[in-house]
């Protein structure tokens, strides 16, 4: 099982989570989604938008777990997010299979709560 794995997120990104802008996120070659404690999307980067086949603007403000990626609305994914947020210690990595443009695609997921900036992140990279 791959409940824990080394993160694919670069130190550059991890070190500036509190100030990461949409433009900076768009420059990354993996998916970056910032959400609030309820899962509402604050930043949705271009890489993720391209693969998902939706526009950044249409994603912002929506719930990541129930509206944009409803296939994550289960105990493993959204459940882990909620549990981590409640505990204030969200830091979970696992393999998952998203559907991008109607094709199942293996990805690695990193759910992270940055305690310094009090921000929540969903990172996605194709496996």
């Amino acid at each position, binding site marked *: *099982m791959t409940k824990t794995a080394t993160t694919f997120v670069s130190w550059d990104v991890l070190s500036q989570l509190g100030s990461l802008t949409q433009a900076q996120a768009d420059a990354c070659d993996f998916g970056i989604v910032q959400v609030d404690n309820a899962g509402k999307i604050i930043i949705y980067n271009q890489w993720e938008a391209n693969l998902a086949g939706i526009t950044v603007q249409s994603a912002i403000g929506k719930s990541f777990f129930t509206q944009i990626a*409803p296939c994550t609305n289960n105990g493993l994914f959204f459940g882990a997010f909620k549990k981590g947020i409640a505990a204030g210690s969200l830091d979970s990595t696992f*393999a998952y*299979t998203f559907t991008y443009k109607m094709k199942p695609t293996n990805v690695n997921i990193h759910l992270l709560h940055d305690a310094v900036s009090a921000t929540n992140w969903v990172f996605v990279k194709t496996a």
Partner: protein
Amino acid sequence: MADGEKRHVWRSRVRDRMRGRATPLFIFEHATIPAASVWTGSRLWVEYFRTASLKPGDRVLLAIPPSPAWLMIFVACLWEDLTIVPVPPSSSSSTLEAMRRFDTRLAIAAAEGSGPAVVSPDRHGRPTQPIAPREATFAPSPETRLILSTSGTCGKPTYAAISDRNLDAVLGSHIPELGLEEQDICLSTLPWTHAFGLIIDLLTAIFAGATVVRDPANGRDPSTLPALADDWGVTRACMVPLQAAKLAESENGRRLLTSLRGGVIGGAPVDTPLARILATTRLRVGYGQTEASPGIALGRPGQWSDRTIGLTIGCETIIDCQSHLLCRGDNVCDAVWSESVGLIPMRAGRWLDTGDLVSQGPDGTMAFTGRADHAFKLSNGRLVNAPELERGLADALGGHADVIITTWDHRTIDIMVTSSDAQTLGAVAAFGDEGLRRMAEPILGSLMRHLGRCTVRADDDVERDVKGQFVRPQRYAHPTQDNYIGCKGPSPSFLYAA
């Protein structure tokens, strides 16, 4: 009912259960896939099958391990009304042999290019390059959704052709009774190529929208299961008695058994020591045969006694005057597969002879008393239920010996006592023939006057048929005969077996 209504019965079910859904969720060692992605993957396979011009009832060999691809292909086959032949993954030569045996048009196997009409999924589970299917010898079997092998533990396996009606009957009776919920996390250890693991375990979990955690060791190493269950918060598990017994040997294993919210133990009789342990759990017994798709009886959670098989579920059962359990209903398979004849339809509404001898308690709960194959008649017409007598004798000998009762001539019965325990062997041998006769007398009763020989020998393993001491004529010669009513092989009938 119009033809179009009869066909495609799975389409709305799998679409409603999977499209865009986060559950059921499937967790494998190196992949986790929600229903939504199984669904989109299945659409690619549907297109693949259509490109290959497969028609309803064309047979497809599914010879890959449990994986996201396996699920996508399974769902796509349901969608297209193809006949799925799930077999264990094997070498390319075995795959080709299985394609011939089941007359499949395509095979999905790990070793791509290992033969014509063999395709492998890519690492995402998607289909790869188009290939030309092989021409089938026999006609398509559109009413048959699955061809499943019986376990054939001791004899030659037979192949049950399970229809949509058969699947409906078992899922319809079992899902409500099992009480599975979306919140359940099911530990999957049984093979998806056998009726127990596929229908009772996997399909019930899928249609309940539960999470399925697949054991990477495929159930072969029960010592790893407690940690796996802890990792994922497993709430349910189906297993065979041997797995449960191995779990019960360790504290962690017993903790797992007692923590489960539900699950079914099937595939073989459960003896008294294991029944005592299982009575402290919420697990229940399941009994059936592949030819009954496979559910025939189900116990109540935590209700265990020696060799219980539970109460009839979703079908009719009767126990005939010779204690044979017979079963009739929509769960009984509509056809069998023969590699030389193809699909052989069975008479609708027939009674399936399970080949098992059972007794029934006042509340209807049945108990397995033996295998009809292993009972025999003496020439004076006296029926000898050998397994039941064997158990009685083994208990009288302290439970450390195996006892086999056979006949050479149908006039006298022979008792053979074997044990791998030297102390037991020594003690039994010390009784001598007469001592053993005296010990057997309370068990055998009036049969004592037929007693021929008592034999004591050291042996780790006893198999009645291998010993060649008891050869039983088959009652029906060929499954094409009208009175063919099921497997007549010498194997134990608990065809849930892994």
